[in-house]
């Protein structure tokens, strides 16, 4: 038995046989050719490229239907690359000069570009390497007339393991046969991570060099809740996971059957539970899970995973589709561009910084790249007529920043008015409270906004000066820290006094252990990952105001996160005994 740890990107617990995909393990049939067959060999390459071009065009269409324009654009770029004149010239030259097969020549030519793009480490162009690897694999499959090496053709059900999954591999996988994904490379924003989230398939990326120890068909456990892969588990481990899995399935089934139940406490107070989404198509899923609306629509996806920055039309279509799904009344809170330090690959190389988390990102970037910002605001305003839109600015640190945001927004409104393009004038405007400075000055900020949304991930990170992805600081980075809770209380107090609407998003709001505390502190709007909604609502249904206030009082007297976590855990166990297992 061996255990590998990685980054969980979509939670779940699955067991099954390993299905290994290796994009580098390509069957190359022939390498040398005779002088007489040079022309035929070049023609063979041209034809294969043409067939592949058609195949990619097909992928592009399918991806557009399934995932929308953003993912389809990956294939659009691939199509141009396959048709590239210089690539064709190089391949033909090599075939003629070195008497090598079309396969060998294509591979050689593409590898050169792959090496080059890979070397551009921090550039958005580095991602093009993945496209070229994809093209290489598929070209050779075309040339050898084999079904490509990827395994979706097999009828086996299992856990897909690979070094990395190419966009076409991931998008072509049959979600019903794939139990989960595990990849050696990749981060939270890799193609695999994004697609696993969209397909709701448990996935762990960044597992490191595990492929050498696992063979096709080995039994594996993918624990995408904890972020580990267990290869050839021993009988005790299998037993343990089987129990956990059946319990998890039972809880999920129960939660789903309850999802229509209101989100009201035992003594009749309502807590609205909204969804955090990233893709337009998640809106429907959020509704299915019982969301009262969208509390946080992250718009970075439009910028990442696209070959090119989104146009106003790309923005507009995404917002319009979410608003239409949610209907005229359910609020949809869209956060403007929040490109952050953890997405460094998608930033121009010229803007590399020593300390990107504290750098030019998010609203700071929008206020500097006003053209980019206005494009997004314009699309938002245009979309506003389709539903109940709210606009939220991230990472606001100073009052001046917020004033500038509002001025720019007014500018864009004026432009639209001149052009006679309809939009709603009374769109609620809000800000994320995620920098300690903003929490401390909540009173001043409250006069400039209609609502606050507390972003706990960054607030914790900035308050405790601890990177949440740093394993060595796992105990330091905690939502239970009394300093973090003190800032939350401050914001709640101001919001109440100034009649500013208040919600909370970020991982903390979706963790049931914090639900009683947040309710006790006075929060009545939570925004969580769609699949967490039923669970959070269930906890809400077990709360009473008096008990929650008592819990708050006890928490306020404690001076460290360990003790606080411990009493929150006890509280949750009493309200929702099925969580007892998870909390061990």
């Amino acid at each position, binding site marked *: 038995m061996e255990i590998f740890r990685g980054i969980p990107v979509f939670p779940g617990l699955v067991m099954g046989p390993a299905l290994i995909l290796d994009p580098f393990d390509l069957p190359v049939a022939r390498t040398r050719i005779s002088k007489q067959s040079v022309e035929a060999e070049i023609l063979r390459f041209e034809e294969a490229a043409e067939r592949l071009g058609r195949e990619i065009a097909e992928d592009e269409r399918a991806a557009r239907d399934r995932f929308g324009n953003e993912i389809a654009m990956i294939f659009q770029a691939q199509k141009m690359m396959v048709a590239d*004149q*210089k690539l064709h010239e190089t391949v033909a030259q090599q075939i003629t000069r070195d008497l090598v097969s079309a396969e060998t020549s294509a591979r050689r030519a593409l590898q050169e570009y792959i090496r080059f793009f890979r070397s551009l480490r921090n550039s958005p*162009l580095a991602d093009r390497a993945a496209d070229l690897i994809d093209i290489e694999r598929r070209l050779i499959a075309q040339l050898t007339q084999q079904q490509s090496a990827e395994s979706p053709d097999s009828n086996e059900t299992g856990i897909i393991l690979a070094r990395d999954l190419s966009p076409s591999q991931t998008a072509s996988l049959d979600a019903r046969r794939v139990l989960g994904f595990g990849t050696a490379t990749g981060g939270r924003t890799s193609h695999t991570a994004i697609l696993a989230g969209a397909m709701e398939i448990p996935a762990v990326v960044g597992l490191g060099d595990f492929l050498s120890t696992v063979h096709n068909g080995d039994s594996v456990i993918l624990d995408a809740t904890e972020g580990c892969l267990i290869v050839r588990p021993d009988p005790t481990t299998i037993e343990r996971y089987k129990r956990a899995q059946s319990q998890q399935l039972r809880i999920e089934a129960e939660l789903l059957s309850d999802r229509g139940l209101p989100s009201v406490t035992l003594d009749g107070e309502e807590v609205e539970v909204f969804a955090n989404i990233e893709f337009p198509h998640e809106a429907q899923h959020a509704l299915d899970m019982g969301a009262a609306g969208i509390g946080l629509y992250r718009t970075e996806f439009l910028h990442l995973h696209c070959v090119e920055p989104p146009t106003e039309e790309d923005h507009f279509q995404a917002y319009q589709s979410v608003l239409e799904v949610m209907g005229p009344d359910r609020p949809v809170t869209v956060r403007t561009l929040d490109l952050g330090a953890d997405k460094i690959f998608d930033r121009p190389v010229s803007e590399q910084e020593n300390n990107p988390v504290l750098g030019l990102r998010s609203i700071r970037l929008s206020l500097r790249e006003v053209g980019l910002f206005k494009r997004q605001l314009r699309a938002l305003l245009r979309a506003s007529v389709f539903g109940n839109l709210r606009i939220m600015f991230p990472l606001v640190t100073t009052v001046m920043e917020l004033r500038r945001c509002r001025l720019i927004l007014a500018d864009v409104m004026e432009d639209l008015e001149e052009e006679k393009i309809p939009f709603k004038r009374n769109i609620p405007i809000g800000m994320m409270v995620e920098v300690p400075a903003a929490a401390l000055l909540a009173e001043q900020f409250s006069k400039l906004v209609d609502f606050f949304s507390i972003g706990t991930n960054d607030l914790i990170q900035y308050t405790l000066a601890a990177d949440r992805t740093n394993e060595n600081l796992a105990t330091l980075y905690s939502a239970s820290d009394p300093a973090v809770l003190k800032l939350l209380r401050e914001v709640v107090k101001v919001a109440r006094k100034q009649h500013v609407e208040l919600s909370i998003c970020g991982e903390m709001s979706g963790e049931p252990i914090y639900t009683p505390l947040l309710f006790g502190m006075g929060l009545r709007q939570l925004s969580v990952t769609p699949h967490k909604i039923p669970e959070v609502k269930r906890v809400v249904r077990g709360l009473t105001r008096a008990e929650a206030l008592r819990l708050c009082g006890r928490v306020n007297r404690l001076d460290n996160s360990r003790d606080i976590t411990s009493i929150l855990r006890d509280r949750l166990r009493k309200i929702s005994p099925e969580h007892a297992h998870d909390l061990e």
Partner: protein
Amino acid sequence: MNDYNADPQPRRLSEDHYSLDVKVINEMGLHARPASLVVGIASKYPCEVTVRNGSKLVDAKSILQLLSLSAEMGTHLTLETRGDDALEAIRQLAELVENGFYDPPSDAPSTG
């Protein structure tokens, strides 16, 4: 619109040889979309079309080569056309630059 590219003027180097200096103003640099627009124009003309970034010179009819220039925002590039229809090709490219690679399309002035 960046002033630098506001009124791009091709220079005539010889009878059928023109050049144009441009600055990359797109946030993501010369990425796939603008590159594909350049390829689209360059491929329409019989003349040779090249792009130079410092000492690196590539064929503007190839998307892979254009991308491998890895021209970030702020990079100065020189476009050159040489051969049949060189003037018309450089004019078309100048128009593309002037319109900020139609990025975003709604901001682009009409091209009449």
